[in-house]
């Protein structure tokens, strides 16, 4: 357990494999590199770190909290910070939560959560036509996506998977990713 918050000039922390249960930082520190994978951080500590890094307002950093024992994915507050950081050009690596789809060509993530922070399930419902791409079941899920520029977008639930189109990304040119039941990536469509 290390409290680094008094090191006011800190920009780079490397602490892999240090059995850390907490590495405390604050948003006033100019940290752009925070690599604390393979420790024993809890999700709450991961959230706190992501929120602090998001709060420092800096661009194009690198944060890695992955491979914790036990796994410690960020919870909804941390996921918001995660998406904000990605939107600011950061490379963010955490333990995964239930549904994360990655565009193999860009490395960008599609995150699906509902309005109360529960993880949604994305199921394959057929060919990647313009009509039907993603089905969100009955959870009323909100889809959080990032575009090719790293901007974060919010996509409202549009109802059952038979409604076309399911996802509406407005004018931000988001990429939508799909997988089949075997985990194979489907086609990618752009909705202008």
């Amino acid at each position, binding site marked *: *357990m*290390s*409290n*680094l*918050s*008094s*090191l*006011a*000039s*800190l*920009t*780079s*922390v*490397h*602490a*892999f*494999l*240090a*059995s*850390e249960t907490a590495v405390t930082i604050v948003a006033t520190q100019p940290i752009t590199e925070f*690599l604390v994978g393979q420790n024993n951080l809890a999700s709450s500590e991961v959230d706190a770190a992501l929120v602090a890094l998001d709060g420092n307002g800096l661009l194009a950093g690198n944060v890695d909290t992955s491979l914790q024992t036990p796994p410690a994915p960020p919870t909804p507050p941390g996921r918001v910070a995660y998406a904000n950081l990605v939107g600011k050009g950061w490379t963010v690596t955490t333990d995964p939560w239930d549904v994360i789809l990655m565009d193999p060509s860009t490395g960008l993530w599609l995150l699906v959560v509902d309005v109360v922070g529960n993880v949604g399930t994305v199921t394959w419902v057929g060919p990647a036509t313009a009509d039907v791409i993603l089905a969100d079941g009955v959870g009323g899920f909100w889809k959080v996506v990032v575009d090719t520029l790293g901007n974060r977008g919010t996509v409202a639930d549009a109802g059952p998977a038979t409604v076309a189109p399911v996802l509406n990304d407005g004018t931000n040119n988001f990429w939508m990713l799909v997988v089949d039941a075997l985990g194979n990536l489907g086609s990618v469509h752009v909705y202008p």
Partner: protein
Amino acid sequence: MTCTASALMAQARCYQGLPKNVVRAFGLALLCNWANHSTPPAAPFRWEPEATSIQWTDSGGVKTGDYPTFLATADIATVTSVEMDGRNITGVFNIGSLPALQHFEAQGNLITTFDFTGSNNLQYISINFNPLASVIYTGCSSVTYIDMRGFVMTTIASVDLRPCTALLSVYCDDNPALATINANGLASLAVLTCSYCNLGDLFVVGDSAIVQLWYDNNPSINIVT
């Protein structure tokens, strides 16, 4: 007064009115005092094996030679740089007897102990890849850079960096027995790396200028800020 044995006895004989045995005793007392408190001549800088050539820089420029050559030709008072990288050197001694030394490199040798006591003009120390057992930095108040990264053979257990009050960067990685680093009170310290050690305590109290802190793979670390 000239502090030689004959001068001291002459001074004792000045006490004309005293018995000879008292004068003799007084003279012996003065001699003992002189022997106990006079400053011994500084032991010269040297290294082993003495047949190994190193490079140094003094007022005459850059020179190369073995230890006898160094003794015969080096201007000790103006030696500013010593470089002995990768020479299979097994020991280096009395580094502090080089009063003008600013730059010291001894990477990749077989040296277990470095004692920089009194090297108060030394600014740059690079001693990585030696089987370190002990490093002493007493009096190194001008040092800004230390590279003491080890390798699997090191046995050094602790490092006290507090004398290095001008320190900017220190690299202590890969010393698997290193359990304690005391870097308290180093107001200029910007870079401290100590990955792949076995640190218990890392003291960085008051080190508010630290920019880079790397301590990967220290499973028992306790950072004291």
